[in-house]
Structure formats: C-alpha cells, structure tokens
C-alpha cells in the first residue's frame, strides 16, 4: 500500500513540475520568440547584474519622441564579463542599440521583454550578450557559434 501512495505522489510531482517555470531561468524557446526579432535603440535606465541572467533596462525611443520601457535579458554576469562587458561599462544613461528577440507573451508588463543577442555602443563597439546553447537562433551574433 505505501508503495502505491509513493508512486502516486511521484507521478503527481512530476506532472506539476513539468509545467513549472523558475524565476528567470529557462531555455530560450520557453520564453522568447525566434520569429519576433527586435532592434531597440535607447538609453540604459537600470542594470540588474544578477545570476542566472543579467537584465538591461532601456527607455526605447519611439518615432514620436516618447519612450517605451524594455528589459533585455543577457547571459550570466560571468559570460558577459568574458565577452568584455561589466556593470560599469553600462552606466545609467548610456546610449546603446540592442538586437534581440521579443518574449512570446509580448505583454509589455511590467516592461516589454526581449532576449538580447548583441549590444552596440555609440562608438560602434559590438558585444554578443546572449546565451549560447539555450536554443536561441543561430543568427551569427555569437562568434562562438559554429
């Protein structure tokens, strides 16, 4: 009898855990849409230099002069450091252009979300800011992608 209960419990747990989404740790395809590429131009408003993914918050300029809040997910702080960027490279107010892919929900609450693939500074310096091997498209942004 106890064995049967244990088996039921285990099945229940597996069934639930399959649909659970951990706070900001996931494969690319779980949250982002490879068919929705975006190019975001704007000023940095906030940086969250945290594991498992860094987030860069941007005020993206619209054609009419207004701004829309976006938050762009990068790789781990460690990955970004090795790519040549740390928190001090992106002070608040820095002008950047980010290319990436919008989140599947496209809800824009609390801010529009995207997975960043590369990041271009005003001086033209370009940095790959995504995570490799997570199922993100092989779009040529990652110099290590073969």
């Amino acid at each position, binding site marked *: 009898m106890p064995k049967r209960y244990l088996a039921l419990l285990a099945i229940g747990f597996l069934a639930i855990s399959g649909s659970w*989404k951990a706070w900001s740790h996931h494969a690319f395809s779980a949250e982002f849409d490879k068919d929705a590429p975006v190019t975001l131009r704007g000023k940095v408003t906030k940086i969250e230099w*945290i*594991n498992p993914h860094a987030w860069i918050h941007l005020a993206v300029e619209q054609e009419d002069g207004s701004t829309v809040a976006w938050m762009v997910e990068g790789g781990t*702080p*460690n990955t970004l450091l090795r790519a040549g960027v740390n928190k001090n490279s992106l002070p608040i107010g820095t002008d950047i252009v980010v290319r990436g892919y919008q989140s599947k929900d496209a809800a824009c609450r609390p801010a529009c979300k995207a997975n960043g693939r590369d990041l271009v500074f005003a001086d033209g310096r370009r940095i790959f800011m995504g995570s490799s091997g997570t199922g993100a498209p092989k779009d040529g942004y990652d110099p290590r992608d073969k």
Partner: protein
Amino acid sequence: MNQLIYNFAAWLDSHRWSTLLHESFYMYNWVETTHVLTLMLSLGMLFLVDLRLLGYAFPDVPASAVAGRLKLPMLVGFTLMVVTGLLLFYAIPVRSAQSVWFRIKFLLLIAAAINAFLFHRRMRESVAAWDTDQRAPRRLRAAAALSIIFWVLIVICGRLIAYNWFDCEYDQPAFVSAVAGCIAGQELY
C-alpha cells in the same frame, strides 16, 4: 501593514550591500548553497528526534540520549541556516517580502517556533517518566508530528519562492495581490 512591509523592504533594497550580495559573482550562490546544506543538517537532526518520540527511530535508546547527542549539530546547523536565510532575504528584499510563498513560510516558522517552545517545556517536565518507552506520550507525539509537518511545509514554501507565478510585477487576481501585499503603482524591482 503591507505598505510598512514594502517600505522596510525597499529601504533594505536601497542598501549598497544588498545589491552587492545579489549581484556578486559567487557569494550569493555560496549563501544559497549553505542555506540548503545547513537546513539539511539541522532538520535531519530534528527529524531524528521527532521520529524517536514517534517510535520510528532508535526505539531502544532513551529519548533524552538521542535528543542530547543530536542537539549540538542541530543548533550549529540551525544558526547557520538562520544567518544565511536572513542574508538571502537581504539580497532580494522586495520580491521576497511580497512573495506569497515567503509569507506562508513566515507564518509556518512562527507556528513551528511556538510548537517547539511548548514541546520543550512538556519534554523537560515529563521525560523522566517515559524516557525508555518505545513511544512518547500522546501529546508529545502530536508535537513531534506537527514539527515534522511544519518543517516539511516550510522547506517546500522556501523552494517555491523561486517561482514567479504570483509576483507583483505581473497582473494578478485581487486575492493573490492582497495576499502578496502588492502596492498599486509600486516601483519595478
């Protein structure tokens, strides 16, 4: 009340050390890992004592001997668990304070503390009478069972804090929003 909790958490969040800990390359992971390892030590010892009272572990060893020997590792584990737990809260104060799971966990911790306090008093008063019995008297067995139930639920709630289904930054039903203590128009953390 929710406004007070939010203000306190936002104040903690404004600390330089809170951000430094959350954004550190390795320290946050070490603190989190230590929290999990020491809770295993602490609860592992506690559950053995509870199981002894229920009659499922070391039935031929006096209950006071089991409790006495496991007390030191249990308290060492407990102390480190509390310290690392506070640090984890300090690193991510606003999101944690507005987590439905954290709030349930906090109430359960209070319940577990009251249960432990009553349990120790009863045990001190009566242990001489049943020390070598295979099972403790009914009321102490109830306290031991409650202790296991509370702590298992506390660990489950603690694990679930990592999930974002009920986070204030998403649109939530009024009930969830009330339980989580979301503040209308609050800043994004």
